[in-house]
């Protein structure tokens, strides 16, 4: 469904991605993990054309979208709940959701709204509240809900669990699974919370300094000693580590 080939991207003279190859098949949940500054957010933003890819190609459902204007990319069926949530602070919850649906025929709006509010009953209670005054968890729900309002086939999520209490994190991950299974939305998930993310994912990639260092099924990476040492250290939910011969990649 999505295939990324030899992708490079830079901010000015600083290159952030050095030839990334990633595939996401329809129906999958694919996770990308990596340390701070590895280039995960840059990759998701490059998929949307901000920044523009320097080299390489991005193909979505057989169409080359590498050079498409950003506002056209979402019209192809890719929605993005970006890093930092980026809720419109001085617009109500309803208006934020309406903005999510700008590319969709208005005749679907009532049904879609209903679906999102069923998924996130908290948003229903706060439909008239200004986005900027929501709690972090509520903002994250709104960011995902807003992305779903565009009827995406591929959902890009950038650290949806960031800054949330463990209970809310579990709730968010459950919802991501539901979206994937029930609404048949393919998910490409960037996470720091590697344990949850790898458990949820069908397949996963590890990014180090703008390159893909490793890939495999979620379970494989979860069992890998290097991954454990680098991304799961101290994770109390993880089983005891096997002796690790090598440090992180």
């Amino acid at each position, binding site marked *: 469904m999505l295939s990324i080939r030899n992708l490079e991207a830079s901010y000015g003279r600083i290159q952030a991605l050095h030839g990334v190859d990633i595939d996401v098949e329809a129906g999958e949940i694919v996770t990308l993990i990596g340390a701070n500054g590895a280039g995960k957010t840059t990759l998701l933003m490059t998929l*949307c054309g*901000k920044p523009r890819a320097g080299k390489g190609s991005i193909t979505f459902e057989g169409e080359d979208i590498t050079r498409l*204007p*950003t*506002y*056209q990319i*979402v*019209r192809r069926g890719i929605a*993005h709940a*970006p890093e930092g949530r*980026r809720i*419109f*602070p*001085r*617009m109500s919850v309803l*208006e934020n959701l*309406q*903005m*999510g649906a*700008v*590319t969709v025929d208005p005749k679907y709006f009532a049904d879609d709204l209903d679906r999102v509010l069923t998924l996130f009953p908290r948003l229903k209670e706060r439909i008239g509240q200004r986005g900027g005054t929501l709690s972090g968890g509520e903002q994250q729900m709104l960011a995902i809900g*807003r992305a779903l309002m*565009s009827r995406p086939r591929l959902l890009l999520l950038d650290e949806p669990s960031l800054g949330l209490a463990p209970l809310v994190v579990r709730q968010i991950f459950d919802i991501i699974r539901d979206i994937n299974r029930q609404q048949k939305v393919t998910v490409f998930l960037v996470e720091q919370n590697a344990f949850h993310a790898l458990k949820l994912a069908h397949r996963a990639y590890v990014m180090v300094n703008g390159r893909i260092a490793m890939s495999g099924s979620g379970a494989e990476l979860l069992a890998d000693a290097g991954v454990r040492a680098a991304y799961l250290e101290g994770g109390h939910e993880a089983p005891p580590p096997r002796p690790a011969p090598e440090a992180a990649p």
Partner: protein
Amino acid sequence: MDYFLQQLINGLTLGSIYGLIAIGYTMVYGIIGMINFAHGDLYMVGAFISMIAFMLLAVLGITSVPLALALVLVMAMLFTAVYGWAIERIAYRPLRGSFKLAPLISAIGMSIVLENYVQIAQGARVKPMQPLIQGGFDLSLQPGHHTSLSLLQILIMLLTVGLMAVFSWIITKTPLGRAQRATEQDMTMATLLGVNVDRIISATFIIGACLAAVAGLMVTLYYGVIDFYIGFIAGMKAFTAAVLGGIGSLPGAMLGGLLIGLIEAFWSGYFSIEYKDVATFGILVMVLIFRPTGLLGKPEIEKV
């Protein structure tokens, strides 16, 4: 008391005109963070287009005043909107993403271009126009005093109120207004959601130009004389109004416009008419010193 009432009426009329222009400054600032110094000249262009349109209608033999007014209103808005749209395309869009001062310099250049263009095309001399709407009401309270409210003043205020209502409705209730506010709050996110930001910015310039065109039409009718230079001073005052109300805030622009009109009218009425501009710009200095965010502005000053 009569004298006070008269200044109040004059001030509200003038303030309506400034308020309509001020909205253009504040909207453009809100959405792309620049001061469009050519905006005052759009108002001047609107005034000239109105005058030309009136003459054209007279030649065509349309003498019904309400019909002529309605037609001129539409024509002024239409043609000034084209100018507003073109200014953004030619002078600002190519500079988007360049350093912060670049569009500002370009705006000043655009303003000079427009003034000289109108000067060459229409001549440097003041253009007079026959009063079109006459009559009014005598509101004198005491014998021997004189207070009047002209039909034209009523028209100006009503038209302003009506336009403000339509404009507020567009901004708060329609998809266009929603996309505009979203773009203003987070342009990147709006793009990620599929908003064509270039179109929204064009729409912002078009709406601002339409309102400035109406102000230009009003001033043509109200003062009966226009020249190529009226945009500069009125533009500066409307800009002051936008800053006074809080740049980026739409209700602020309307409020600031009214206040500047009132200050100017009362200062002229009670102190000296020669120093009315000093009073207005004195206010600008005071606001910038004591309340840089303006009366209704948001406390955040990230975009300055």
